[in-house]
């Protein structure tokens, strides 16, 4: 009996790629979102700002407007597609920035130790202890708003997690082992950190990225919903929900389509992230 129980997972492990159904669906959804984001211009049936005044607030299921139209007769599907592009652009851009900033600071802390390390750790503590939404709102209040600023601002979200991870792993790599060996070969610090330490800790960093990514989506959509993130005529998922809120009683579909997209995308990235974490790095959290 135990033999049978042992054999089944072993056989399953041999099959490649060994991906649970939920993770498969999640990857499929993210892939679809990426395709939509990249080919938004080709896929969108209408321009996202184009009015169709004869078809205002038309219901979903209408052959001309599958997801209906809004108050001004703009096609909800087309707006959704463009919103996905903007929201994903911000989320990917911000996640990449925060991973780069955090990892760099973590490496600097590990390399110089002493004061540099204390400063990085102090900033990380500060970042972790202040609600990011409030800091973000403060910056937006002082600087006004633009897409690059928004991406840069979101890029400051979560950097402290990468910094802590990168610092810890780099210190342990430096203390003994391959990094020390390569350094005594005469390698420059850049070479040690980028060619050796980074590839060795990449899986842990990637897992952290999948944990930060959904939070960035939620943060951006929250700011945009409040009217403080992406500004019209540009549109994002949170923006659409915020706009749809005005027509909640008459045309709830305007709000529901982007809301569902936000929830499913966040869920999908979380599912992938949990799976990757179990697979690559069970030590995290």
């Amino acid at each position, binding site marked *: 009996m135990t033999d049978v129980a042992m054999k089944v997972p072993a056989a399953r492990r041999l099959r490649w790629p060994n991906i649970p159904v939920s993770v498969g669906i999640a990857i499929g959804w993210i892939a679809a979102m990426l395709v939509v984001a990249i080919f938004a211009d080709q896929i969108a049936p209408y321009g996202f700002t184009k009015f169709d005044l004869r078809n205002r607030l038309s219901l979903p299921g209408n052959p001309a407007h599958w997801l209906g139209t809004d108050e001004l007769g703009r096609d909800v599907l087309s707006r959704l597609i463009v919103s996905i592009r903007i929201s994903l652009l911000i989320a990917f851009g911000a996640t990449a920035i925060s991973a780069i900033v955090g990892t760099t600071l973590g490496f600097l802390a590990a390399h110089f130790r002493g004061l540099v390390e204390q400063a990085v750790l102090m900033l990380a503590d500060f970042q972790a202890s202040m609600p990011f939404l409030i800091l973000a709102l403060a910056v937006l209040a002082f600087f006004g708003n633009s897409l690059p600023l928004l991406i840069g601002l979101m890029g400051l979200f979560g950097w402290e997690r990468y910094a802590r991870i990168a610092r810890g792993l780099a210190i342990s790599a430096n203390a003994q*082992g391959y990094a020390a060996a390569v350094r005594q070969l*005469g390698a420059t610090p850049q070479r040690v950190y980028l060619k050796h330490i980074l590839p060795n800790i990449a899986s842990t960093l990637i897992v952290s990225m999948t944990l930060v990514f959904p939070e960035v989506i939620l943060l951006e959509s929250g700011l945009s919903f409040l009217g403080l993130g992406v500004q019209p005529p540009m549109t994002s998922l949170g923006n659409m929900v915020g706009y749809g809120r005005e027509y909640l009683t008459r045309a709830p579909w305007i709000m529901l389509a982007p809301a569902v997209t936000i929830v499913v995308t966040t869920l999908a990235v979380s599912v992938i992230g949990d799976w990757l974490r179990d697979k690559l790095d069970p030590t995290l959290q």
Partner: protein
Amino acid sequence: MTTPLLEVSEISRTYRMRAGLFGRPTSVHAVDGLSFSIPKGETLGIVGESGSGKSTTGRMVLGLEPPDHGSVRFDGAPIAAPGTATWRAQRARMQMIFQDPLGALDRRLPVAEQIREPLDIHNIGSKAERDARVHELLHAVDLNDGHGRRYPGALSGGQRQRIVLARALATKPDFLVCDEPVSALDVSIQAQVVNLLVDLQARLGLTMLFISHDLRVVRQISSKVAVMYLGRIVEYGDADDLFARPQHPYTQALVSASPAPGRRSTGRIVLSGDPPNPAARPSGCAFHPRCRLATARCKAEVPVLTALDPQRQVACHLVTGAPAQTQDAA
């Protein structure tokens, strides 16, 4: 007489340790006023228990950490401060073999790429020349190109150590420090790696500092041997002679504890007392609490390394001291 390739004079290294953040800091004299030199093409073996400061010596000799006092001169010039460009350039001429070959290799790169890395770092040769050199090095350590394509995890301990050796030799260095290079390996593999080292040393005319706690290995590979105890050299001499007639009581104990073919089995000297702790160095001769011959003078006075004859130096009151002081012995 040839000028020595490596000249070490009076180097010391002290670590400060604390028990917790608010504990009182204590100084640990890892290495205390060490001097020796290695002529070109020769191998000096350093023997000692853990805590004797032999690894710290290896690191200071390579310039991986600077000595607090004293100087290390390599080929007539001082070693640059760690991390500087000059220091990095010097790495091409001096290399290190580590105790743990798996830890010393990057698990995410094929080993051939790691052998090639010193050539990339020091920008030696064209791409084709580097490839040829990697091929040559793999063969020099009795491996083939197939091994080169593997990752460290797919090689055995002995094969990994040969990869580390090949990488260390890539830039044709003059000087090699081997820190316990075989102690992490199976006994059956140790001999292969040691033989390879002896062979390469002879073939390439390498100068080596060979650190080990294993007397047999040291004897096989070294021309001169230094015995270290708590940061100081207690005995120094020609390898075969030193092991054949050890003078210092500590060396005698070490030699008696190590079985060797052809040596008459005299009574084994068992060391009593605590193993050496560099944080609590005994007064006088650091070995006196464990020495079966210790006298009152040994507790009070630090013995100086003194030439017994041109081939042998010993730091022991009983061996070098005035006869009047030895009456308490026996």
